[in-house]
């Protein structure tokens, strides 16, 4: 019987992959490099090519018990290169020379041309039984090429040799044109760049070509640290296909502030995102911490992810107004993750946050408080990415069934309500606004729910106080009304939201309330 569709004696070729082991590069390449493939790695000096290639070799030895040959074509001593590498954590001198073997091909290519160089490579790869081969400094080889065709033939011969020996080969060079001969011949082209964008120096990795497999296109942030090189795929590309959304049965996640929770119909819907916006000092952080503490009281794990206040300050601040944060931090119910407000990479921040969340995956109905959105905004190299980034991040948090509160800071003095991250109001199901009002030399705080998707909510403005006893929200809108109907000089005018979100609540009367909060003279 021949030619049968059911003939299973013909096996499809196995897609053997060689993992780089470089954080998230294999994710970008959907599994790593193809075994026996040949790849061009190009970039300007200082972009991390040599680090990436060496790190890949050490990882390959460690994970696959592989054998690597690293050939330089530059007039540069290996001793100097290794001295620079030895401070990096992946470097293990004990693997040299048995598993990682450094040779130079410069003199051979200079004296004997490509035929001599190919002979040297063939002999060395076979003798060392190499599974990964790196040639560093392909531009040197090209300089010795009598013609473009000769150089192309050399790369072609390398490709044939790599395939025959099953030895995955990397050709490292300084920046090349995308249409360069070499790039046309190889199985994949990866570019590392190092550019100044405004005052920031930004390293990025771009896969331009990868035969026989899908990959994550576009630029991805590159970080070089004492661990070596790591890649941060763009969050919006990484989570382009979010998993199924959170469970159907949604709970209400309360703040532990009865009157405010009433306004929210019992609390925030589980698995949703809420934007908490207000000027500095209006109480955003305290409200967010109340949300985490109330969750911890109910046995729900919480994470604080912030940029401005280190954990001791945060605990001190919360305890001063009667929010028992320290107890829940000590018993592990609440984790405080603080990123000092330095130069960050936006996607790296998202990874840290999500990795932290996933580490607590055993717990159910988790809460997250991000303080604040401006931390991500400040880390954005490309501001135009922020909307889609936030959308991808919040989608991912939703699919993990995380109930998220994220603050965004309004300017201290502005006559209109202009959201600094307007897209946040689009991606968030709920928006809560905190603001100041001045009346007779006294500052009052008002709170209102501006938006709450697919949910009933109280549209009234409420006065609230922050006292050593906690956050006290007025039981009705009347105290707010009395403030607003007096001779009010507002620090912030009644908001006219300049964005696409629904205008709700600010000017709408809620149900008649009963009580009236006494204007407090207690400042914070």
């Amino acid at each position: 019987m021949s030619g049968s569709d059911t003939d299973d004696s013909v096996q499809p070729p196995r897609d053997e992959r060689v993992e780089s082991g470089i954080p998230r590069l294999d994710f970008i390449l959907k599994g790593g490099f193809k075994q026996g493939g040949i790849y061009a790695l190009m970039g300007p000096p200082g972009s991390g090519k040599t680090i990436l290639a060496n790190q890949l070799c050490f990882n390959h030895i460690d994970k696959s018990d592989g054998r690597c040959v690293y050939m330089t074509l530059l007039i540069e001593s290996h001793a100097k290169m290794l001295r620079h590498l030895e401070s990096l954590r992946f470097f293990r001198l004990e693997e040299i020379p048995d598993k990682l073997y450094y040779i130079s091909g410069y003199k051979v290519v200079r004296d004997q041309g490509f035929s001599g160089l190919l002979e040297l490579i063939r002999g060395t790869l076979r003798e060392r039984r190499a599974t990964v081969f790196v040639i560093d400094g392909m531009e040197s080889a090209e300089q010795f090429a009598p013609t473009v065709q000769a150089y192309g033939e050399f790369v072609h011969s390398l490709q044939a040799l790599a395939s025959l020996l099953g030895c995955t080969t990397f050709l490292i060079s300084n920046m090349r044109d995308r249409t360069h001969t070499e790039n046309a011949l190889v199985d994949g082209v990866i570019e590392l760049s190092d550019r100044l964008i405004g005052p920031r120096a930004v390293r990025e990795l771009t896969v331009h070509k990868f035969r026989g497999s899908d990959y994550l296109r576009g630029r991805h942030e590159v970080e070089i640290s004492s661990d070596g090189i790591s890649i941060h795929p763009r969050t919006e590309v990484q989570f382009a296909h979010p998993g199924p959304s959170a469970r159907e049965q949604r709970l209400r996640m309360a703040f532990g502030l009865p009157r405010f929770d009433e306004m929210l119909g019992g609390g925030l819907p589980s698995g949703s995102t809420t934007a908490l916006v207000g000027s500095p000092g209006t109480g955003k952080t305290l409200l967010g911490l109340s949300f985490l503490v109330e969750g911890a009281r109910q046995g729900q794990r919480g994470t604080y992810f912030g940029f401005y206040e280190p954990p001791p300050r945060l605990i001190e601040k919360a305890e001063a107004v009667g929010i028992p944060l320290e107890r829940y931090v000590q018993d592990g119910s609440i984790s405080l993750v603080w990123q000092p407000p330095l130069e960050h990479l936006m996607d790296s921040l998202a990874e840290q946050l999500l990795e932290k969340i996933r580490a607590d995956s055993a717990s159910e109905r988790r809460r997250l408080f991000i303080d604040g959105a401006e931390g991500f905004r400040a880390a954005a190299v490309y501001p135009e990415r922020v909307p889609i980034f936030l959308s991808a991040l919040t989608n991912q948090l939703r699919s993990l069934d995380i109930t998220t509160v994220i603050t965004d800071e309004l300017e201290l003095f502005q006559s209109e309500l202009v959201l600094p991250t307007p897209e946040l109001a689009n991606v968030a199901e709920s928006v809560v606004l905190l603001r100041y009002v001045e009346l007779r030399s006294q500052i009052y705080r008002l709170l209102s729910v501006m938006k709450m998707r697919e949910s009933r909510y109280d549209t009234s403005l409420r006065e609230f106080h922050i006292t050593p006893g906690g956050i006290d929200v007025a039981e009705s809108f009347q105290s707010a009304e009395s403030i607003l109907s007096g001779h009010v000089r507002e620090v912030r005018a009644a908001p006219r939201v300049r964005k696409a979100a629904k205008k709700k609540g600010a000017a709408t009367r809620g149900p008649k309330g009963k009580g009236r909060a006494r204007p407090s003279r207690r400042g914070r």
Partner: protein
Amino acid sequence: MKTILVVEDEFDVQQVVADVLRDEGYEVSVCGTGAEALRRLSESRPDVVLMDIMLPVLSGMHVLEVMRKTPGLDQVPVILMSEAIPRSAAPSLSWQLFLKKPFRLEQLLDAVGRLSSPEGRS
């Protein structure tokens, strides 16, 4: 005049080592692969071999192994050099001295001087 065979694939190291040894009055020949080193050794016997471990085609250790099994070459003193100190090897793979790269001029001249003198070779 003492003869030194320098077996080193790195062009810059090969050149500078050969030049300083010539300055010191040694007769120096150079080659860049293990296979070529064995060819040279089959043609003439140097007083000292200064050899890198990580060589193309055949490693320095492989060359040393062949040398120690070849009458006439088995007693030629060998200085190995590399970025990594060689670990346990077969007792037959005896080398006389090891230079860890990068080394200083004094260390190089001291090592070659010790092995090219009559006492050093005994």
